[in-house]
Structures are given as structure tokens and as C-alpha cells.
């Protein structure tokens, strides 16, 4: 049997070890950063956003997928549920954004000894995460405020504030709590931590399959493109078209639209209840699947 081929085919338990490790450590760090008070200068918040170096280091040293998922779940469990701050749907967005960003960062590195690669990966990871968060935040205001373009100055200020927060987080948290610690930790832990889990260290003779290497890069480019497209459209006057269309839509269908959206949500809730009742009666295994689909 070729050991090289086996390398990244981890057993279920090895995946679980990476997962647990990442979950408990990043979770702990998250709880600590939540408890540490932040320094505010008006809208400029100099806070320790997160200790991104922990999942980054683990994603670089181990299998990025399990380390990334573990870290995101750890954040939700330790940083939100345990502190009584679990936010429901908001957590789904955080989970996806953070796992994706960390996974991409980890996948970018194929030689943990290469400082340049590690550094680029660390900053990229934070940037992707912050970019997604920013888009979601802008999107929230966009959805939440009726006829956004009709309110003078609001659209610009949202973009400016979120954009500033983005730069602040990437430059402050990104450099101090992602780039520098990751560059410090990865070489120290490389070759030392893996045997403790019964794994062999990653090395540059083994690469991910082409698909695995391409996929993350492709995603980064896609995310950047999508983001810039979004930003330009939003800022440029021609971009208002979208909003106008949106407003038109509301104008044309008026109240009816609200009732429809409300109705859809109601129907979803109703279906879920029905499914649950059926579940209760039949106790069939399949039902969970459909429930899951409905909810997601």
C-alpha cells in the first residue's frame, strides 16, 4: 500500500480528533475574546475581533475541512450558546462564512514550512471572512430598509461604515491576531503536534488533487469578483436600477407582496408542523430528511 496515497484519507476518528481539537481551542479563545472588553473610539472599535490564528494554524497543519468546521462550531457553542448569546439564523451565516474562509486558507498552503504561503493564506482567510460578513451586513440593511435609495445618504454611509469595519478588522485583527501568530505557531508546531494525534505531518511532496487546489482558488476569485461587482453596482448611479426595480416591484404589488412573503413563511412553518406531526405518528426515518430540507 502506498502511504502517500493514504495521506489525506483520514479515518473517521482522525477527522474527529482534528474536529474536537479545533472546536475546543477556538471555542475557548472565542469565549475569552468575548469576555475581554473592547476599546471604542466612536464607530472605530479596537477590539480583539477573534483569535483567527488558531483555526488558521490547525487548517494549515491538518485537514482544513474538519479544522474549519470544528472551529466554526466551537465559536457557536462556546462563544454564543454558552454565553447565552445564541442568535439563531445569524449563526448559520457566521458558520458558513467562517468555515469557508478558513477552509480556503488552509487549502492554499501545501507546504507548511513555506512562510510566504502561510502568511498569504492567513491574511486571505481573514479577508474572505470579513468580506462575506460585510456583504451580509450591507445586505441586511438593504433588505431591512424600505426604499433604501429614497433615504438620502443612508446607502453610502452603510457602505462606508461597513467598509471601514472591514479594513479595520483585516488590518488590525488580521495582522495582529492572524498573520503574526500564525507565522509564529505553524513552524513551531509543524512535525510536533501531528504525531500526538497519530498522524504524519503534511509535506510538500504531497499535494491536494488538482480539483482540491483549484477549487479554493476559484472560490476566492469568485468571491472577490462577486464582491466588487456588488460594490460597484451599489455605489454607481446606474446601480440604483436594481433598487428602482425593487421599489417598482413593491409599488406595483404593494401590500400584496407583504402578504405573499408572509404567507410563504407561514406555509413553511405550517408544513414543518405537519411534518412533525406525521413524524410523531409514523416515526419514519425519512421524515427527518424532509424536515431538514424544509428548514434549510
Amino acid at each position, binding site marked *: 500500500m502506498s502511504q502517500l496515497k493514504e495521506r489525506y484519507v483520514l479515518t473517521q*476518528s482522525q477527522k474527529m480528533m482534528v474536529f474536537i481539537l479545533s472546536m475546543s481551542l477556538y471555542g475557548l479563545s472565542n469565549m475569552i475574546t468575548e469576555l475581554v472588553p473592547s476599546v471604542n473610539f466612536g464607530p472605530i472599535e479596537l477590539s480583539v475581533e477573534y483569535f483567527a490564528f488558531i483555526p488558521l494554524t490547525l487548517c494549515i497543519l491538518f485537514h482544513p475541512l474538519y479544522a474549519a468546521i470544528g472551529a466554526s462550531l466551537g465559536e457557536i457553542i462556546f462563544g454564543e450558546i454558552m454565553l447565552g448569546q445564541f442568535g439563531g439564523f445569524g449563526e448559520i451565516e457566521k458558520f458558513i462564512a467562517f468555515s469557508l474562509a478558513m477552509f480556503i486558507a488552509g487549502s492554499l498552503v501545501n507546504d507548511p514550512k513555506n512562510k510566504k504561503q502561510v502568511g498569504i493564506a492567513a491574511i486571505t482567510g481573514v479577508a474572505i471572512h470579513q468580506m462575506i460578513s460585510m456583504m451580509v451586513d450591507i445586505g441586511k440593511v438593504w433588505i431591512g430598509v424600505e426604499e433604501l435609495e429614497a433615504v438620502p445618504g443612508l446607502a453610502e454611509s452603510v457602505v462606508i461604515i461597513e467598509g471601514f469595519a472591514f479594513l479595520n478588522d483585516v488590518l488590525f485583527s488580521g495582522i495582529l491576531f492572524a498573520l503574526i501568530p500564525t507565522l509564529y505557531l505553524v513552524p513551531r508546531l509543524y512535525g510536533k503536534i501531528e504525531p500526538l494525534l*497519530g498522524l*504524519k505531518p503534511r509535506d510538500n511532496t504531497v499535494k491536494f488533487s488538482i480539483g482540491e487546489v483549484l477549487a479554493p482558488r476559484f472560490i476566492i476569485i469568485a468571491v472577490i469578483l462577486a464582491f466588487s461587482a456588488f460594490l460597484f453596482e451599489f455605489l454607481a448611479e446606474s446601480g440604483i436600477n436594481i433598487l428602482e426595480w425593487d421599489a417598482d416591484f413593491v409599488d406595483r404589488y404593494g401590500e400584496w407582496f407583504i402578504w405573499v412573503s408572509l404567507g410563504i413563511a407561514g406555509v413553511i412553518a405550517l408544513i414543518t408542523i405537519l411534518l412533525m406531526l406525521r413524524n410523531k405518528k409514523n416515526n419514519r426515518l425519512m421524515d427527518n430528511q424532509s424536515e431538514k430540507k424544509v428548514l434549510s
Partner: protein
Amino acid sequence: MTEQILIENVTFKYPGGELPVLRDVSLTVNKGDFIAVMGSNGCGKSTLGKLLNGLIPHYYVGDFTGKVTVNGLLTTDHKVAELSHQVGYIYQDFENQLVSPRVLDDASFAPLNFGYHDYKDRGRQSLATVGLTGLDNEFIWQLSGGQKHLLALAGVLSLDPDILIIDEPVAQLDPYHAEETYNILKKLNEDFGKTIIVIEHHTEFIADYCNQVVLMEAGQVLWKKNTQQALREVNQLLDSQIYPPQVTQAAHKIGFLEMSDYPITLAEAVSSFPCYLKNTSNKSVPDSKNSDQLESLIKIEDISFSYKTINRSRKKVLKDISLTINRGERIALVGNNGAGKSSLLRLITGLVKPEQGNVIVHGRNTRKYSPEKMADLVTYIYQNPEEMFIEDSVRKDVEFFLKARKVPDYKLIVERILRQFELTDLQDRDSRLMSGGQQRRASLAIGVAMNPSVILLDEPTANLDIATRKHITELISSLGDQVGAAVVATHDMQLVAEWANRIIVLNEGEIIHDGTRDSVFNNLQLLEVAGLKPPQILELSRRLNMSQLMYTVDDFVHSVKREGTSYGIYTKTV
């Protein structure tokens, strides 16, 4: 006798390992055995255990040859899940084996996963078996170490396995809980017919509880013998760094008995050693120093301390304690768990402040100085050495304090300390990846490098095998002139007897005795109240009514030889 476990010619190498951990091992274990596996560190004892529950070869996919049959099941053909119904494994770091927040959930975790409808009942029943009742909804982190160990045991018992493997049950427990655990194992063995395999090097426990002993060395089984025969192989055991019971060592050193007559338990020893008349007049008087010449380093004045519990009430751990610690004192702080030993040490470091009263170290009141400032005077060595390792090599850890303070010529100091603690060859290793004894040496070296006036050690010999324990005891004794005073909180009565010149007995937050080893070990009532278990040889000398208590095997041997010659009793036993 039915053969329950059959290991045939097994050789195993961990994935990525260079040498096989097990080499051509063959062993048979009969149903109902209570068997001890002994051997020095890294001889493959724990690997042998993992062979039986199928973790090898299913979980650790290394190079495996040979055949293992457990209860008629070939481990290569059956999954870990199936084998865990046959074999239960309790780890040395059993805390990490507990995965649920609450007691009952953890005890019923395995039966639930295997889909038993009565999983809660199974959990409750196994909790009852180990005597852990009334705690079902308690959070695990509130349990004591001993209770956690029992819970780990209950967790594997819930699947009702026929075979239990316990990896070093005594290592992480204090003597009282260790005995309790062994009594439960005995019950499981005798009343429930379980086969028990302990990985153990505390031969005094082996003598009391086990019927078979396996000796391993360098990945091979040297022999399997019944306990009496096994423990009498004094020379061979000592070669493997294993110390037979003190009474057996004594018999061996005195040399008046045939090997086949060596006693292995205290009771046997009492009948095989000659009896002396108690000579009370000859009792040594503790050497009390003149108090005028004493230079006091630490003054503790009427301190009280309490902490908050989960239901927000306060639990008092120290009540009105007053104490003076003088230069040159080697203090042992003893008492059962929860007596307040650790709290007292932490108060001296200034990490926590007393609720009432003052702690004054070298004239500095801990209330007024930050812990950083106090650290120049007092060093606290954690029970778990890993918590002292903050750097990635031994050397960097030792020099951290000196470097931060820009001490000139710190390199020379570090070199000297590394030599003193025999760490020169290990200086570039990561402390966390070393053996237990090496870690302990490194933690002592780190403490000494801080050049403290007072050094505080929390359980410095816990979790060590006896050979390493002796070595650490020597190193602690060698601290002598380097520090003004040393305070050790410990359960290790051997260390107390050999090292301390002042013993403070704490019980329920109060000092119930402050004296010397003679005043402590002669006071049977005190020993009883404080839950102290004197070393076996000391107990023997008491039972034999010797003129004075013997603290070490060598003292005992000398005394017996001297007195034996003068009384001419040798002939009696030969």
C-alpha cells in the same frame, strides 16, 4: 480455569513508529484473574491493553502480526464497538474519557450509543456498582479526582464487559482513593466474576489485591507468575526499575529468610520478622531549635479563605490560620483532599488574597503587592508540570524568568541548573513531549531558576512511578541551601518521612498538628483523623514494637541487623 484472553505471537508497530512496541508477545489470561502488568516506562504495557479492546489493529492501523482472541472473538474479525462489550478500558488520563457534562449522562453514554432502550437504568446500575449514587445530575467538573475515576469505571461497566483493564489506577489518585478504587475492583472481581487487568507498579497494592503478575520489558513479556512468586523476584524487579513492597525489600536486604519465605504484605511481615519489646524510654526527641535564632520568612496571621460554589454559597476552606515559616525549614503540608493545602499555598503566592488576616512574605503584605512582584520571592510549582511549560524547549523555559529580567550571565546560571536537574541532554526537547519524570525535573528546574526565597511544591511526586519518585525526592532534598525554605503539599508519606523537618497537618481548614515526623507518626489518632497512611516499613516497625519508628527500609535493615545480633534472634526463623 477457562482461558479468556489468548495473545499469540503478536508484534506491533505504531504507524510512523520506528521500532515495534510489542515484539512477539504471547500471553494467556484466565477468566476471573486479577492480574497486574508491570514494567518500566515505554515497555508496551498500555499498548498491550489496547490490543485487547481492538483499538489495535482497528484504530491504530500499524504493522500488526499475530493473533488475539478475547472471549472467543478474534480481534481482527470484530470491530472495536463489538469488543468493547467484552473489554472495558480505563485510561491513565481518565478525565478525558468523560465526555458528557453530567454524571448520569456520562455513565449511560455507551449504552445509549449502542441503542439500548434501558440505557438510563444501565447507567444507574453501574453507578451503584461503583458506589457513586446520589450524584446523577451533578456536573462532572465538580467531582473530585477519585469520583471521576469511579465514573470512568462506571462508564465502561455500563456495557457489562467481562474484562476490565485499568491503566495505572493509583497514579492520579491520593492513597485513600486509590485504596477505595482497589476495593471496588476487588468486589467486581469476586462478586461479579470480572477479569481485572491493572497496569501497575505500586507493588504494595499488587501484593494486597492481585493474584497474577506479568512482567514486561522492551516490548516483550518476560514472565507471568503468581503474585507471591513474582514479588519475591527482588533483583529482577529492581533491574526493571520496579520496587517490591518495602517489607519484601527489607527481608531481601537483611537476608535471613529464604527467597520463598519473603513476606509481601504487612501482615505476613509481622509474623515473619522477630518481635521486639517496646522500649519507650529510648524514644528520640524531636530536635527543636532555639526560637531566638530563627529568621522568619513568612508570617501568616489569622487568615480565612473561602470560595464560591455553584449555588453561589461560599465554602470555607481555611479558618483562622496562623503560621510562621522560618529560614531553613523543610515543611510538609499534609492532610486529606479538601483540607485546604492548595489554598494555603496559593495564598502565599499572592495569587489569591485572604478574606481576613494577612500573609506577609519578607515584610511584603500580599494584599499590597501584585503577584508579579511576589514572584521574585516565592515560586509555586504546579502539580501538573505541563502548566509550567510555556516555551517550546526545556532550556527556553528555564531561562524565561532570567531573560525577562535581563540578569547578566544568565546563561551560566541556566547551564548550572540544567546540570543539577540532569536536563543538559534534554535541553532542546519540548518539555510537553517528555516522560512524566523528566517533566517533573524540568518544572523543578524552572522553579529554581527563579531563585526564590521560598519554594512551594504542590504534590511533586504524584503520578510518578516509585523509581522516579525516589529520584525526585533526592532532587528536592538537594534544594536545601539554594532556597530559604521549602513547603511541600503532599500525600506521599515516604517523601514526608525522608525529607521534612517540620510537618503541618491540616484538617478541614484548620491546623490540627504542627510538629516533626516523630510527633506525627507516633500519634495514631492524628493519623486516623487526617487520613494519613504511613509508609509500610514504618507501620511494620510499629507493629513489631521496635524501639523507634523506622522511616526507611535502610534504617529498618540496620536496626534489625544491630538488634538482631545483640538479641540473637536470627536462629529462630531460619
